[in-house]
């Protein structure tokens, strides 16, 4: 999949509009200076939009396109191409391809003429969509043509690639419209250049996994340095190399698996060893044991937690997949006791919030790979004591601090969603995964297969955790994996 940096031009400068509103234009400077600052390599395909032209209907920024073409960039130009003369004008300036929006929806005749005159490889029809409706004329008018009709037309002309922008997502940095591109996958063989809302490297990977997306236009996220072009390019080369993980969670109290709603109304859900073995057989990639009663005790190595160490030992001895254990870890000694009992990784939570240096101490003693920072977030803030007590620490900032201090992964639980089956908090996940390099395990709210997909695809999670859904056999780990695999998300 190609990553296509986008420059929107207005009065000779690079700008960004939000929701296509000209009054909201923000200035980023001269085009050449912007490209240099972003380290855009030679030979890159560049998406240039002449905003004034898209409104007035005639080419304006021809001088800039000429300059960019001479810098060894493959320029595709959009904006106000409404005649063969306009098209010729841009091509004479050195543009490689022409992005034609309005005509694709409103003037099929002209689109056909453009393709006939300049060739299928030179014309990229652009379709702007808001709430499923095609928009034209600088997004200011809606069209009566349906997506199905427009793409049938494009296919008939023999054009292989079309640019599709979800206007409601554009510039909002909330992620692209995966649903729209998935809908198009079922509708047409035309390859899609996705545009609008792309704001993290994970977004780019998720688009590549859809299979019908051949390119991805990145504007604001690049200009605001939320995406590093080289990093995103490296990740998108093998978008399916690393399987995403499904992790059943055993909330354990007094040696039994229990489950509650929003951390309360606890009920019994079985024997930990039986659950663990069943989950490995179903294809679980890892197990998490959280000792939910431990936080209120003085220390995990206290007499009271002999039960939980024993549970860890029994579970570790019955499975051949990694085991992460958390709950009540106050010190390096607690951490060590759990590792000795058979945990591969240990999650710290309350004690780390009260004394963040604990993260460094454990990372130094046992290695970054052993340290998981568990963050229970409620209303955007980190909580302590199994979600019972909210702090004033911002959850996103706390996760970022955890990474700096040496956590190898974040277990991010939405307390608000936990046990509700209403879906993971995708916005919270995006906020955290956008600023972290280490992986995030999504937790809290799994209810349907789509929830697992959305946590990975939109949320950027590298693993998804669920408890009651698996305990109650609403879904099996195998069900989730088969579904994700069919949706193009790699699983083991």
């Amino acid at each position: 999949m190609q990553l296509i940096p986008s420059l929107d031009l207005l009065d000779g400068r690079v700008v960004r509009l939000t929701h296509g509103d000209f009054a909201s234009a923000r200035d980023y400077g001269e085009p050449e200076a912007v490209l240099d600052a972003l380290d855009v390599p030679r030979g890159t395909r560049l998406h240039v939009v002449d905003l004034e032209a898209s409104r007035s209907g005639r080419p304006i920024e021809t001088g800039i396109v000429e300059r960019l073409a001479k810098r060894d960039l493959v320029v595709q130009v959009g904006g106000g191409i409404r005649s063969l003369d306009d098209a010729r004008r841009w091509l004479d300036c050195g543009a490689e391809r022409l992005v034609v929006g309005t005509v694709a929806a409103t003037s099929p005749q002209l689109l056909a003429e453009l393709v006939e005159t300049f060739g299928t490889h030179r014309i990229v029809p652009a379709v702007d969509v808001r709430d499923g409706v095609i928009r034209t004329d600088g997004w200011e008018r809606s069209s009566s043509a349906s997506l199905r009709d427009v793409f049938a037309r494009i296919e008939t002309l023999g054009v292989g690639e079309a640019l599709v922008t979800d206007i409601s997502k554009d510039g909002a940095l909330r992620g692209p419209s995966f649903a729209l591109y998935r809908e198009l996958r079922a509708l047409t063989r035309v390859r899609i250049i996705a545009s609008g809302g792309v704001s993290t490297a994970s977004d780019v990977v998720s688009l590549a996994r859809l299979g019908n997306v051949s390119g991805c236009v990145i504007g604001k996220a690049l200009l605001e340095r939320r995406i590093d072009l080289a990093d995103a390019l490296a990740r998108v080369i093998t978008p399916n190399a690393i399987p995403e993980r499904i992790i059943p969670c055993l909330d354990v109290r007094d040696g039994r698996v229990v489950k509650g709603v929003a951390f309360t109304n606890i009920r019994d859900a079985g024997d930990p060893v039986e659950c663990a073995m069943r989950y490995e057989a179903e294809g679980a990639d890892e197990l998490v044991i959280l000792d939910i009663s431990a936080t209120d005790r003085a220390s995990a190595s206290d007499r009271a937690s002999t039960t939980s160490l024993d549970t860890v030992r029994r579970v570790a001895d019955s499975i051949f997949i990694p085991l992460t254990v958390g709950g009540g870890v106050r010190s390096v000694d607690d951490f060590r006791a759990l590792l000795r009992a058979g945990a591969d990784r240990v999650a710290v939570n309350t004690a780390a919030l009260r004394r963040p240096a604990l993260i460094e101490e454990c990372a130094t003693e046992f290695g970054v790979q052993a340290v998981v920072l568990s963050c229970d977030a409620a209303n955007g803030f980190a909580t302590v004591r199994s979600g019972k007590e909210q702090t004033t620490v911002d959850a996103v900032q706390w996760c970022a601090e955890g990474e700096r201090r040496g956590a190898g992964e974040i277990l991010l639980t939405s307390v608000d969603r936990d046990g509700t089956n209403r879906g993971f908090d995708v916005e919270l996940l995006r906020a955290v995964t956008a600023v972290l390099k280490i992986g995030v395990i999504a937790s809290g709210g799994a209810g349907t297969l789509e929830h697992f997909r959305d946590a990975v695809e939109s949320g950027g999670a590298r693993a998804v955790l669920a408890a009651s859904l698996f305990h109650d056999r609403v879904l099996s780990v195998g069900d989730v994996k088969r579904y994700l695999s069919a949706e193009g998300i790699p699983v083991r």
Partner: protein
Amino acid sequence: MNVTLIDSPVANTANIARALRAAGATLEITHDADAIARASKLVLPGVGSFIAARTWLADTHIDNAIDAAVKNTAFLLGICVGHQLLFDLSYEHGTTRGLGLVEGEVQRFDGPLPVPQIGWNRVRAGGPLFAGVEEEAFYFVNSYAARAARDEIATADYNGPFTAAVQRGRVFGVQFHPEKSSAAGLHVLRNFVACN
């Protein structure tokens, strides 16, 4: 089949012992250099730092014992850092010589993905060690790996391709943790336990 598991303090010996037993091995777990030199089938585990593991092997003369066993046609399987120890050289915290049983060097992963690699990764493999599990995912925890090693029998991708397993004659090494890789991991161990 009898397998001698080298009882290193810088390894997760208990987990590997349990997995080897599940794979059909009758185990001798020892750090006695003479017993290791006489062994016919050896497993060298290892986690943590290359230097710590290498230093322990030298201090206990187990490095010489492994050499002697291999010269005496023993089979050897290195796991994780035990696999890295088989190579000529590692660049972890400076430069440290390995056992030199397979050609190549161990280098840090560099690139956009976070280091250490923690998790499952797809492995493309060949040869007797991977018979029946040529295209499976295995569980990795590593910051360092060999790249395009001459004796490579399996590769995976993490910030670019790396060597997931090697074989030179009767010496095998796997960068992943077979004892944490569920059925696929046990399959590899079963293949090793059964080879003769």
